[in-house]
């Protein structure tokens, strides 16, 4: 077990190192830098720009800058934002927290929907209910997320039922605890709906396929022959038998918690990591970009790691394989 864990952790560290080098290289080698937009400000002279560039060490070789950043990272410092003139880490964490609230809620919801619907669909495979569900998910797959998000926003404007963006209302601080929860939930409805609608079809189809395959297994037919109830058969025996690909998918869901909601966040003005990172990329705010990419990668690695652990726990074949090594 320990060897398995150490090997996985080694892979994760190597991946993070590789991603940080690549992100640094791509961000640095992309044409232009943060101070370029100031060149279009008639009030700022070329000399002032040169002084600013020198102050922020923009002109130093990439390797030197990477080495300095990496050393700082070892001390828990993710660098300094050119634009905000403040350390990157607290800014990233504030936005990441908002993103996690959104994507965490959406992830829980989508799994809560996908599991029972997928199992039900597998059980009814080929019947009208299953066909109807397939059509419904196909429609959700076809509709672009952007169109869905904009459509929901227009609906919100026309109906006045839901807020049209943001995370809380302007007067939030003056609300009672109950009003605050209600306000937050109302603001979550639209972006969560977009995220759920985009992830549900794929997840549901995977659950359906995995359970349908498991239902064909002879041990399940035998169990059915022994008179075990249909519901118990599906959830106690078929679902665990179909777990292998689903656990991998679950790991991926965890991994995408920070990086999977960019579009919804931008369109719905959700103050998460996505819009912040996008702004950082466009502004060439180097350390914001590297920090954001690294944090997203960390989640991806952690998601995969969690999936590996779950698989290790759920699948005796993997345990045996690890023991043999």
């Amino acid at each position: 077990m320990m060897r398995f864990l150490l090997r996985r952790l080694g892979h994760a560290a190597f991946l993070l190192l590789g991603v940080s080098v690549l992100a640094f290289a791509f961000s640095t080698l992309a044409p232009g830098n943060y101070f370029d937009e100031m060149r279009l400000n008639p009030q700022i002279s070329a000399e002032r720009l040169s002084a600013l560039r020198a102050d922020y060490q923009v002109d130093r070789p990439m390797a030197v800058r990477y080495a300095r950043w990496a050393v700082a990272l070892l001390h828990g410092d993710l660098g300094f934002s050119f634009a905000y003139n403040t350390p990157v880490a607290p800014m990233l964490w504030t936005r990441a927290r908002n993103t996690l609230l959104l994507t965490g809620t959406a992830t829980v919801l989508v799994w809560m929907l996908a599991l029972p619907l997928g199992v039900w669909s597998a059980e009814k495979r080929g019947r009208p209910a299953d066909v109807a569900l397939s059509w419904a998910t196909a429609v959700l797959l076809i509709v672009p997320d952007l169109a869905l998000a904009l459509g929901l926003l227009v609906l919100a404007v026309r109906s006045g039922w839901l807020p049209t963006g943001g995370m809380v209302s302007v007067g939030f601080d003056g609300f009672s605890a109950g009003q605050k929860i209600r306000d937050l939930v109302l603001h979550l409805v639209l972006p969560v709906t977009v995220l759920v609608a985009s992830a549900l079809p794929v997840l549901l189809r995977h659950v359906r396929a995995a359970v349908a395959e498991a239902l064909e297994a002879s041990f399940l037919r035998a169990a059915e022959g022994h008179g075990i109830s249909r519901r118990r058969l599906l959830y106690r025996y078929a679902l665990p038998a179909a777990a292998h690909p689903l656990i991998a998918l679950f790991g991926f869901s965890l991994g995408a918690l920070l990086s999977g909601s960019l579009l919804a966040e931008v369109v719905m003005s959700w103050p998460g990591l996505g819009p912040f990172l996008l702004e950082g990329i466009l502004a060439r705010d180097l350390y914001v970009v590297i920090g954001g990419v690294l944090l997203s990668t960390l989640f991806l690695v952690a998601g995969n790691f969690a999936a590996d652990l779950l698989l290790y726990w759920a699948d005796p074949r993997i345990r045996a394989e690890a023991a043999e090594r």
Partner: protein
Amino acid sequence: MSELRAKSAQMGAVVALVAILGCSLFVGRAKSFPPQHSVPAGEKEEIVRVAGEGGRRGGRIVIALKAEPKTLNPLTAADTPSREVISTMQGDLVHINRATQLTEPALAKSWKISPDGLQYTLTLRQGLKFSDGRPVDMEDVLFTFRVYLDEAVHATQRDLLIIDGKPITVRKVDAQTVVFQLAKPYGVGERMFDSWSILPRHLLETTYKEGKLAQSGALGTAANQWAGLGPFRLKEYVAGQRLVLERNPYYWKTDEQGNRLPYLDEIVFLFVPSADAQVLRFQSGETDMISRLGAENFSVLSRQARDYTMADAGPGLEYNFLFFNLNELGEKAPAEMVRKQGWFRSENFRQAVSLAIDREAIVRLVYQGRGAALWGPVTPGNPRWANAAIRYPGRSLDKSRQLLAGAGFRLTNDEIGGPKLVDAEGKPVEFSIITSSSNADRAKMAALIQDDLKQVGMRVQVVPLELRSLIDRVTQTKEYDTCVLGIASFDADPNSDLNVWLSSGGMHLWNPSQKHAATNWEAEIDRLMEQQLTATNTVERKKLYDRVQEILVEHHPMIFLASPDILVGAKKGIGNFHPAVLEPYVLWNVEQLYQRNGAENARR
């Protein structure tokens, strides 16, 4: 039973997730408010009485910003949202009224300019207080200019205080009087004092001595650690979401009835990154005012106007233009580029391109008629400095073709019978226009120019580039043929664009940072701009700048295209809504804005 447990666990997970991640929403963001200081009885306060419609106290307005401001520090602010927010929190000695475009007394109640134009004597108002209640004295003024001029601070506006290579010196005469000594007369006169925020020495001196002044004023700064002389002061910042400012009780203006301004209790700036989302939030009533609207969104909102008023303030100061790569590229330049530069350096060619472009169509199709066609760099939004003698002659394809023929170009037919222009060597005239992919209006302009030039046989490709890549090409690598870009001047005075017109300027886009002027006409522009810079007579300055405009139109280094109108909107309940064409368009008179339903709005 186990299913039930599983479902309970799932529900529990949702609740826990919301609780854990959301708990920080409910706690920990409250800031310490500045202590309340009462105005000492009997102290003389030299208040400014502002003319105009009287309003009602109370309420708030909510306005969206396209991006989060980066700082509250006027020294380092370079982005538009920061400048917009800072303008409501800070005060300057002399202020340019955004509606009249003329100067008016602000923190300085009067000023005197010496006959030689080298000395400006300003008298500070008595009884001024920062928004934290601490009195303002002359040491604050001296401190402000000391830090703005300190090279180590990297103040973005510092260069404006350098006249003829020498920094302005500031000297205290007495408790209320300060003298600014210039090395040479400065044509802008007292306008130069606009937007220099007077900083609170009591809060910033220690930071300055520690060499950390540029880092101060971050958005997370506690409210009691930041003060200014503007109508509002910091109340709360929620990262990524909003910035809330509250009324400054020590503000130094009253209305005609003697009621202390501002009327509003709060301004809330929401960060809404997309223009469409801003429109939706305005439509749904979540924001009270909207600014920097595109023509399309303006039309949509105007058609659906219910409880809001949409206003077209007319053309602003932004001018959009096409320019050619006229840089000296040296011997290593590719032959293709050398050949193209041969065309671009021909004034007849540039003028022919100019005459072939249908500017009226640009205004009609890009700005839906809400803009002005431009022939020179000064827009109709700046009537004081526009050269009225320069008139847009209208599009003329015939004249364009004649000029091209005169410059040795020949019009032939391509393989499908369309016009094809070839140069004296028989090579087809083909070039690209780069433009910013993030600016849809300029991308449309480039496409229209492509279509216009096709009619005189030129083949043009439009290449949208991400803005920083574009700037890199124009100012660093010089790898481009032509470019469509725009400049939005901060002020109506020609000196705000000095860097654009001087051949040594970094923004002399067609050939920036020249050691010596590359052409005679550029040398003449240099001479004229230097003269107007130091001329103290406005009539003389106007004459000099008129000539600069004439030269630009004669030689066409830039082909001026169009200027968009300033399009804004506000809820009908907002009083004193009078948009201006200078920034900040809707908030320039923020101290006079009020909610007609007053305090009722505060409960919204």
